[in-house]
Structure formats: structure tokens, C-alpha cells
């Protein structure tokens, strides 16, 4: 064996050892700081984990851009109609007076809020962009109560890691990590462009997560569950989206 190939062998060995130990350290750090998404398995897991970890490190406290009123879209696209089932129609006929938002799971005081109760909290309005994964978007003014305020009211337990949210549409549910759940712009939204939130846009209640794509902004929400473990929900991917082939994290 020549000097050349011996040197090469040693260098390759050292590089491989450094690489393997680097990966092991990175994996431990990622687990420690919650940088691994629930859909990290499978052939796309590596890319998904890199995206989520990189964006979490970069964006933990950043604010979604807010726009001046002149930028509000004249034609916000509703992408779908109000649910046609009897339960929703009955609630709609009653002006959503009986709509409830239940909050349970890892909370000190499980509760159920009416729209009026939610509206009694200090409201927040923000003009933000809503972008669909298809490529289209619109800007609107959204009014609601920050999710962190609702979570304060029920008292989340220290081990909480995710907030799971459910729609009145049984096949639509999702979850966010605490960085997004406690983010000041994440809102339980009931108003849009100065009026009530139209049913086509998710009224009476929609969770707005402006740093993530449209499909994370679940319409017609009825229940929030605080948890430390997503494996008990659906197939364990943290959302109905990965079950339909879409990424759990949609900040991309």
C-alpha cells in the first residue's frame, strides 16, 4: 500500500468518524430542543427534519409581516364552501350562538368557550398574508383572540409540547408546536376585514397561523387539545395533512 492511499484511508476514516459522531450529537441536540417533526420518518424524513429544524432555529420569535390597509386584497379567495352538514347549518341558523370551543388535555382547568366569551377577551387585529400550498394567496385583516390568551385562561401544564386543533369537519385536524401556539400572531380568529369571519373563510372560528401555509389554518375549529405526545392522534403524524401526503410543518 503506497503512502498516498494510506493517507487517504486515514483521512477517510477520520472524516467518517467525525461525520458519524457529528450526526449523533446533532440528533441528540435536535431531540433536546424539539427540532424533530412528527412526520420525520420515511423517505422524505431527512428533508422535512432539516426544514423544520432550520426554520425553528431561525424563526422561533420572528413576526409574520403585517401590511398597511391599502394592501388588503379586494378579492380574497375562500377556497371552498361552508360545510353542508345539518349540524353546521343548525348552528349557522342560530347565528353561531351555540358554537363552542372546548379546550382540554394538559391544562389545569379544561373549559369550553362560547363565541361571546372569546370576544370578551381583548381582541387583536392584524393584516397578514394567507398563502396556499397551491401557489395563490391573499392579504386580509384578521381579528380574534391570541391563542396564547385562551391557553392562559385554561392554564397549560409545563410538559405541554403541542396544541392539537379539530374542525367540525371530522377529517380536518392539525397541530402546532408551542413556538407557534404561544406566538403573538397565532389567533383564534372570528373577524375578517372589519366584519364577521365569513363561513367560506372558516367562520365562525378559524385558527390563523400566519407563519405557516393555508392548510395549517384550520377552519371551523371546535376543540383544542394540549398534549406532550402526538402519537395518540390519528396515525401519529400530528395532523391529517401527512395522512393525505402533506408535510406537518408548513412554514416553507
Amino acid at each position: 500500500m503506497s503512502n498516498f492511499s494510506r493517507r487517504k484511508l486515514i483521512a477517510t476514516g477520520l472524516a467518517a468518524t467525525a461525520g458519524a459522531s457529528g450526526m449523533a450529537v446533532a440528533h441528540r441536540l435536535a431531540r433536546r430542543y424539539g427540532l424533530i417533526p412528527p412526520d420525520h420518518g420515511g423517505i422524505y424524513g431527512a428533508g422535512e427534519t432539516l426544514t423544520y429544524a432550520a426554520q425553528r432555529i431561525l424563526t422561533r420569535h420572528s413576526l409574520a409581516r403585517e401590511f398597511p390597509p391599502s394592501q388588503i386584497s379586494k378579492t380574497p379567495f375562500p377556497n371552498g364552501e361552508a360545510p353542508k352538514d345539518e349540524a353546521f347549518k343548525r348552528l349557522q341558523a342560530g347565528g353561531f350562538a351555540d358554537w363552542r370551543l372546548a379546550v382540554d388535555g394538559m391544562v389545569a382547568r379544561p373549559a369550553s368557550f362560547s363565541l361571546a366569551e372569546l370576544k370578551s377577551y381583548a381582541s387583536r387585529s392584524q393584516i397578514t398574508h394567507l398563502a396556499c400550498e397551491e401557489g395563490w394567496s391573499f392579504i386580509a385583516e384578521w381579528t380574534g383572540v391570541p391563542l396564547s390568551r385562551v391557553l392562559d385562561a385554561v392554564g397549560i401544564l409545563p410538559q405541554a409540547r403541542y396544541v392539537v386543533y379539530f374542525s367540525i369537519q371530522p377529517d380536518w385536524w392539525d397541530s402546532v408546536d408551542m413556538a407557534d401556539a404561544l406566538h403573538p400572531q397565532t389567533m383564534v380568529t372570528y373577524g375578517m376585514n372589519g366584519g364577521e369571519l365569513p363561513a367560506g373563510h372558516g367562520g365562525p372560528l378559524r385558527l390563523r397561523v400566519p407563519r405557516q401555509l393555508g392548510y395549517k389554518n384550520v377552519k371551523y375549529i371546535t376543540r383544542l387539545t394540549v398534549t406532550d405526545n402526538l402519537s395518540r392522534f390519528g396515525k401519529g403524524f400530528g395532523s391529517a395533512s401527512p395522512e393525505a401526503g402533506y408535510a406537518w410543518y408548513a412554514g416553507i
Partner: protein
Amino acid sequence: MGDSAFPATVNARHSALVRVTHWITTLCFIALLVTGVEILISHPRFYWGEAGNALTPPLFKLPIPASRSSVPTGYGYVLPDQNGWSRYLHFQSAWAAVLTGLLYLIFGLFSGHFRKNLLPGQAGLSWRAFSTEIANHLRFRRPSEAEAWSYNVLQRLTYLFVIFVLFPLVIWTGLAMSPAIAAVFPAAVAVLGGQQSARTMHFFVSIFLLLFLAVHVVMICVAGFRKRMRAMITGRAGTHMEGT
């Protein structure tokens, strides 16, 4: 490892790192292209500014059917929707391409690869050399044997443009579409004119990259497909010039 492998390594037309990064990039590019098309057909309309949707007049639209029924395309049918896995694979390939590109960039700077192989020399940048090269191309003159060992000025400028202009632009316009990235680096979106402008530019930069790929492949066929492929796979440029 036999000593006979040694001269071939020293005299390789393309260094091992260039060859490996070239083919990883090729794979990523194909994956990005296919999945990019799949994502695009879910909304084949383009806008300028921050926002735009099916109710907004488009800047232009592609005359193709869409994979979502919410888009007014004028066609009576909807294509199969492939967005889920396409998005997963698009971003995974983008990561692989960017990390490979970083490795190549570091290697290129420290090994002298950019300086020796890609930056045109003083002589190459003269009008005379330039016009000769263009004339040769226009006459479809096949490249000489010497050109199997070195890039001409047009090749050098094209590769530099792709590596230092098109690739950074396609990454930038791609990242500018991300709502989370827009939150951290709002200026990176504002400079482009908005998130829909970024999407439109992403499309056009991709078209330029696709054009480059087409010309690149045609030129390889013109210059000798087998020889050029061998040079980029094994590092050997040609049999009778080996060891020179």
C-alpha cells in the same frame, strides 16, 4: 489499491469532487424539475406583487389544465393532484442540492477550480477570441481535441453564470415564497417585489436553468457523448491524451 490508478487520478479531466457533486446536482435537478412542474400545475397562473389568486387578474397564465378544480383554466377536466409527495421531494432535493452546492463552492474556492477552470483568462476575454468562439459555435464546428481538456470562453462564462447567478437566484426566489422565511427576512421578499413576484421569478429562473440543461446536453452530444460522459464519470478525458 494498485499504483496504476495513480496517474489517472492526477491527470483527471474533472476532479473526483467535481464529478460527484455534478451527478448529485443532476439527480437533484431532475427531482426539482419534475416536482416543480407538479406543484406548478396546481395553479398555473402567475401574479406580480404580494398576493394573487383565482379571483385576481393574472400577470399571465399557462394554457394548460390544472390539478385543482378551483382554478379557472377553461379545460373541462382536472389533472391528478400530486402536490403532497412533490412538495416533500422538492424541498428534500433542494436541501441536497444546496448542501452539495456549498461543498462544491468551498472546494472550488480553495482548490483553485474556479480560478483555473472557470474564470476566463485575459486572452479569452478579448473581442477577437470571443467572436472566433461565437463563429465556431454558429458554424456548428466540432470542438478540437484540446478542448476536451479545457473550457472555452463561452463555456466558462456560461458555467459561471449558472453557478453564481442562476443557482443563487432560484434558491433566493424559492425561499422568498416561504411564509416563515418572509417573517425572518422581510427585506429578501420586499426587494423582489412581493411573494407572488418571487414565485413568478422562480418560474422564469427555472426556465433559464432548463434552457441551460438543454444546451448543455446538446453540446455534449455534439462534442462526443461517450467521451464527455466518460470524462465526467471516470475523470478520463480521452485515450490518446491520457497521461499528458
